């Protein structure tokens, strides 16, 4: 566990530190035959024994604060230590900007730890909108290591809604998607911004440019699940609206003509066909171009689309069979 610079020097056992001479440490009570008994290192044991002492005495002092820091470095998942630290911070009216810096140290090594993120939110909430950009910057750093970190995204959404900072958010999504067009978290965030940002016009105002954006992403990587879902989301899953936007059928046609990475395009085509989309001859030819030759004569377009899906996505054969059984018949 990485600690601060002091820890690079030999650690002085707490029992040998003069400022702790008046405290009797309290050992872990696992009961006589612990259910899931755990072996401890000496350093861990000693630190937690002293923590238990101050916790039980409810001592909210500077030395207790320092002790919680040591305990956290040893085990950042211990939520009781974090909570007691918050009580001490409040009692001492401590410098919360410094606290954010402490969390920085811990968070980078433990970016999936619920306690750290919750603590960070507690601190940021107290500091208010002045730390909005700092918090956004912090999540950005985490994303540079793991662009899909669920905690970081949750924190970022909270920051935007509670503290502000929407100005560059759409551009930020652009950046991340440029790095990795498959980043589903970034697509989700894009939807979040488009629908909730007080600075943009809302979904209706943004729809046109966002459809263009999604289409471009699809053409780049047709096997990418995210922009297909995003496209549906822009029209709130109302397939008839998707039928009415010629760009949707058009992108399906482009993908089918290319004959590669067909699944999502065929799936979308299937939905369109069931909602009064009238396929062009070009579209019918494109389907024929990828359909198995084994298709019996007289099968309609919908059935042909389904048989291709079963062929190219066999792991979901049951799903495509079900789609086949429930779609309306059209030619």
């Amino acid at each position, binding site marked *: 566990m990485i600690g601060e610079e002091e820890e690079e020097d030999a650690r002085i056992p707490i029992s040998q530190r003069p400022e702790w001479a008046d405290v009797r440490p309290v050992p*872990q*009570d*696992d*009961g*006589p*035959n*612990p*259910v*899931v*008994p*755990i*072996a*401890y*290192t000496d350093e*861990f044991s000693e630190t*937690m024994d002293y923590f*238990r002492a101050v*916790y*039980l005495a409810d001592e909210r002092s500077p030395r207790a604060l320092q002790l919680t820091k040591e305990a956290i470095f040893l*085990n950042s*998942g*211990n*939520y*009781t230590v974090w*909570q007691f630290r*918050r009580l001490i911070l409040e009692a001492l009216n401590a410098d919360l900007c410094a606290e954010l810096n402490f969390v920085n140290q811990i968070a980078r090594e433990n970016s999936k730890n*619920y306690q750290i993120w*919750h603590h960070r*939110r*507690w601190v940021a909430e107290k500091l208010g909108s002045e730390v909005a950009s700092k918090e956004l910057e912090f999540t950005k750093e985490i994303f540079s290591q793991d662009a*899909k970190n*669920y905690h970081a*995204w*949750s924190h970022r*959404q*909270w920051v935007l809604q509670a503290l502000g900072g929407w100005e560059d958010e759409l551009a930020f999504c652009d950046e991340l998607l440029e790095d990795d067009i*498959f*980043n*589903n*978290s970034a697509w*989700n*965030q894009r*939807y*979040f911004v488009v*629908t*909730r940002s007080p600075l943009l016009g809302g979904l209706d105002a943004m729809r046109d440019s966002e459809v263009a954006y999604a289409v471009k992403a699809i053409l780049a990587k047709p096997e*990418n*699940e*995210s922009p297909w*879902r995003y496209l*549906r*989301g822009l029209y*709130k*899953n109302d397939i008839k609206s998707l039928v009415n936007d010629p760009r949707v059928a058009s992108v399906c046609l482009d993908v089918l003509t290319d004959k590669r990475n067909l699944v999502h395009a065929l799936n979308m085509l299937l939905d369109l066909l069931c909602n009064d989309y009238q396929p062009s001859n070009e579209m019918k030819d494109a389907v024929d171009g990828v359909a198995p030759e084994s298709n019996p004569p007289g099968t309609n377009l919908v059935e042909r689309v389904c048989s291709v899906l079963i062929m190219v996505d066999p*792991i*979901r*054969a*049951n*799903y495509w069979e*079900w789609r086949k059984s429930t779609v309306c018949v059209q030619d």
Partner: protein
Amino acid sequence: MGELKVEKHVEYILTVEKKKDDFESVVMEHLRLNGAYWGLTTLDILGKLEAVDKEEVVSWIMQCQHESGGFGGNIGHDAHVLYTLSAIQVLALFDKIDVLDVEKVANYIASLQNEDGSFSGDIWGEIDTRFSYIAICSLALLHHLDKINVERAVEYIVSCKNLDGGFGCTPGAESHAGQIFCCVGALAITGSLHHVDKDLLGWWLCERQVKSGGLNGRPEKLPDVCYSWWVLSSLIMIDRVHWIDKGKLVNFILDCQDKQNGGISDRPDDAVDVFHTYFGVAGLSLLEYPGLKAIDPAYALPVDVINRIFIGK
């Protein structure tokens, strides 16, 4: 075709505590109650719960209870709903829920509901649909859903529904299989599954299956055995489990076993842990792997335990 090494896994769970100076064990201290739930439920599914001393476990659990009525992750820890649910679940395994002051525990949980129907995890106020599930599951097991505003709770969960049919931790958050399990489970328990677009969500869930047969939790992420539970139980609750390739998933889970030392890991050849061992075995139970006790997908407890609680002995 692999097979489930039942004896090895039982041994693994029973002897996991004997590892000396194991850093992983040390950092699990504060969530030992969760660990007990994962380990003991696995033993029960494997038909080996009697290998554990019931009285000792119950006695230790009760020492984890806080004066607020909630449970901490271990003796001397603060109360949180995460550990409260595990406590109730483990007591349920042993048919010992009656040792609880049910009113007290139920009141603790109910006190954490917020105005908008959401639930906090504890007095510090973190909100997450995980806690909605925990509260609803706990109170249902205690026969005290009447203590919360169920309608509001459902409303909040529905507000976390996304256009892909999935659910996130808070409104607008990305759909994630773990959060989906929590939301669908909570809706199932409260009889509110009509809020779920089962075809749309079923499609999103079956898209989690990757070529290796394993399941991921979000698009373009790696498969992980724990999603064998989150995704699978969700699919079962919305009656769409036939949309995945079950055989391939069984093989994936079996490949994640450590056949020498027991235990199951997140994906093949990684280190094992109790968490993934539980989810792997529970997933296999949902897939009706032979020789395993059936597990309830909403309550995450063996079906006979649930029947005992809701139908009687």
